[in-house]
């Protein structure tokens, strides 16, 4: 983990509790639940809405379009190089709202904890949730905690929902993607999936690859305010990686997408790990990369803008939407060959040789 995170951990010492692991009792709603939540969740994530400790949150929203999303996080292991399940849950939901052309504002946070989870792990997750919220400028306004018997979960699952105001100039809609649109990727790919693989039981390998998890709650509003409706569509390239997102778009629209391998950056260590593991980086998950479909004439300007962002140094135009090969994504390889890039079929399985 990076230095500032260690500093954060040190500046938020774990409250003194008379238990070290989470048990069924902590999900009972009784005294133990209160002990856990008061000392942990409520203090740490305190804001005027959550402090009410009501069954739900009553928040002010201005008139206009709102975006609403939900997602569940079941990543294993829960701690991985560059992050943990907590910040993933906040960034993921924030980013889903951003992909609607919205600025995320309010988040709900629900835990399903398997009994036996060390309280110190829960605390570590909470402080990263707090940090992710602060960085993205969002508030956790309501939540829930349940505990399940050992063996009925996997340490901790998190569900987050979020709402955010759709930006006034945004017009993000799949139907607005047209042949001639440029396809832009916001950064290099495949870091998150490989970071997870590097610590997964039975596959551990030494590497300096860290997850790319980050929020888009600043860059997307910036892009929308600058380029407005010329940004036609946005998707984050999470599960299934870049190729899955592109295939979804190509198939939904029944248009072709052509991409150029040499425009897509893969970090050298990530690429090496993919070679060794027999994985294709195009199918590996990202948590800090989005794809933008934009009007041809603004593409280079969009890339410049994303490159100026700290998580977008490898942003690039990687391809275009075309009337040719409808429903298919065709990759032009670095050596000049072409191949169809298919939708991932189930889980990506490592090859033997």
């Amino acid at each position, binding site marked *: 983990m990076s230095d500032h995170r260690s500093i954060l951990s040190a500046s938020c010492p774990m409250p003194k509790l008379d238990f070290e692991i989470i048990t069924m009792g902590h999900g009972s709603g009784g005294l133990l639940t209160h002990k856990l939540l008061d000392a942990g969740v409520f203090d740490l994530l305190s804001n005027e809405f959550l402090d009410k400790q009501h069954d739900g949150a009553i928040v002010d929203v201005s008139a206009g379009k709102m975006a609403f999303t939900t997602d569940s996080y079941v990543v294993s292991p829960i701690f991985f190089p560059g992050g943990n399940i907590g910040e993933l849950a906040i960034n993921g939901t924030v980013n889903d709202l951003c992909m609607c052309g919205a600025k995320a504002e309010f988040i709900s946070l629900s835990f399903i904890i398997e009994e036996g989870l060390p309280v110190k792990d829960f605390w570590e997750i909470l402080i990263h949730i707090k940090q992710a919220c602060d960085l993205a400028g969002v508030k956790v306004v309501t939540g829930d905690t349940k505990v399940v018997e050992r063996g009925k979960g996997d340490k901790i699952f998190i569900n987050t929902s979020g709402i955010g105001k759709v930006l006034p100039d945004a017009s993000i809609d799949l139907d607005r993607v047209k042949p001639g649109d440029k396809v832009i990727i916001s950064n290099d790919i495949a870091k998150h999936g490989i970071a997870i693989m590097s610590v997964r039981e039975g596959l551990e390998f030494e590497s300096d690859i860290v997850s790319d998890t980050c929020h888009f709650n600043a860059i997307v509003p910036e892009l929308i305010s600058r380029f407005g409706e010329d940004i036609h569509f946005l998707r984050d390239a999470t599960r299934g990686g870049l190729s899955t997102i592109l295939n979804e778009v190509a198939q939904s629209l029944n248009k072709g997408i*052509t991409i150029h391998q040499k425009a897509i950056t893969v970090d050298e260590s990530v690429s090496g790990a993919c070679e060794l*593991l027999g994985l294709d980086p195009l199918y590996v998950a990202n948590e800090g990369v989005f794809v933008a479909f934009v009007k041809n004439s603004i593409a280079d300007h969009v890339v410049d803008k994303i490159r100026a962002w700290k998580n977008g140094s490898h942003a690039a135009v990687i391809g275009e939407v075309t009337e*040719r090969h409808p429903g298919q994504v065709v990759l032009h*390889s670095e*050596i*000049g060959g072409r191949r169809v890039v298919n939708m991932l079929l189930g889980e990506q399985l490592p090859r*033997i*040789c």
Partner: protein
Amino acid sequence: MKYLSEYRNPELVKKYLDEIRQACTRPWMIMEVCGGQTHSIVKNGLLQLLPEEITMVHGPGCPVCVTPMHLIDKAVYLALKEKVILCSFGDMLRVPGSTDSLLEAKSKGADVRILYSPLEAVKLARENPDKQVVFFAVGFETTAPANALSVIHAHRESLKNYAILASHVLVPPAIDAVMNDEMVKIQGFLAAGHVCTIMGIREYQPLVDKYKVPIVVTGFEPVDILHGILMVVKQLEKGEFKLENQYARVVRPEGNPDAIKVIEEVFEITDREWRGVGNIPLSGYQVKAKYSEFDANIKFSIKMPKVEENPECIAGQVLKGIKKPHECPQFGKGCTPERPLGAPMVSSEGACAAYYHFSKISGQLTEV
């Protein structure tokens, strides 16, 4: 990534393509034996770059594709047994058995683990003394030393809860079987570089002599493959047949004697059934009697009924290059990567899957 990027160099690719075009005066049919080569050909889009005269046949060198169905059934049966941890290389999991794949067994509660090294399975056995750990030892000669080594380690540690389900296959007998078929029209071979890294190249000379075909031991990067094709074409055009080694930066003529020693310690050669091809004499490895306590077949005395392959699947003819995948009536209809009838449609290295993905654009190549 040095040592790889120079073999993906677009200028070198162009140079070799130009040389192949210049060397080629008539049609030639060449088989790349190894699934890894097929994968590279498809991934890099090499087929469209080659001149029309060259027909590449994707050979039987995909271990996932040729592992017989009853062995998958055995693995599934073991995986579903209580207190068994079944370990496998990743891409075996989706291969259909007669009822289930290992992936389906996993969803039914079987403890199936994807590993990269059989030594990890030995570690699992050490850490789980109350469980039986079985490694599904699939592959060609390339993976045999590591699988054999796992048995040697388990033996040395006197582990009583480790065994392998061996399904090793050997390349030279497969080439022999392919060429023995009168219907086969293959004129040259790219032999599998990594197999030869272990075994050396000498066992291919008798095949060159017997069938009078060029065999070029070839690597896996686009430049390697095109260089290998060029070497085969040059021989064919001159009417020569020789054993050559394109992959000399990795493959020594004698192979890796230490690895061979490990293989010979644990395995002996046996007849083996190849999915889609049938029985090939002396074409596989089985665990020697002295290590029988580590042979899952013996340890669990498994007797599975032999199941017939789907008669509509023409995998055997495809793997021998007699028919192209798209000439199969079921191709893309009754048989797709989502619902494969036969194994070559399962793996990304499989001949049918390779064609399936490619052929979807083949009709529009000029437009793409």
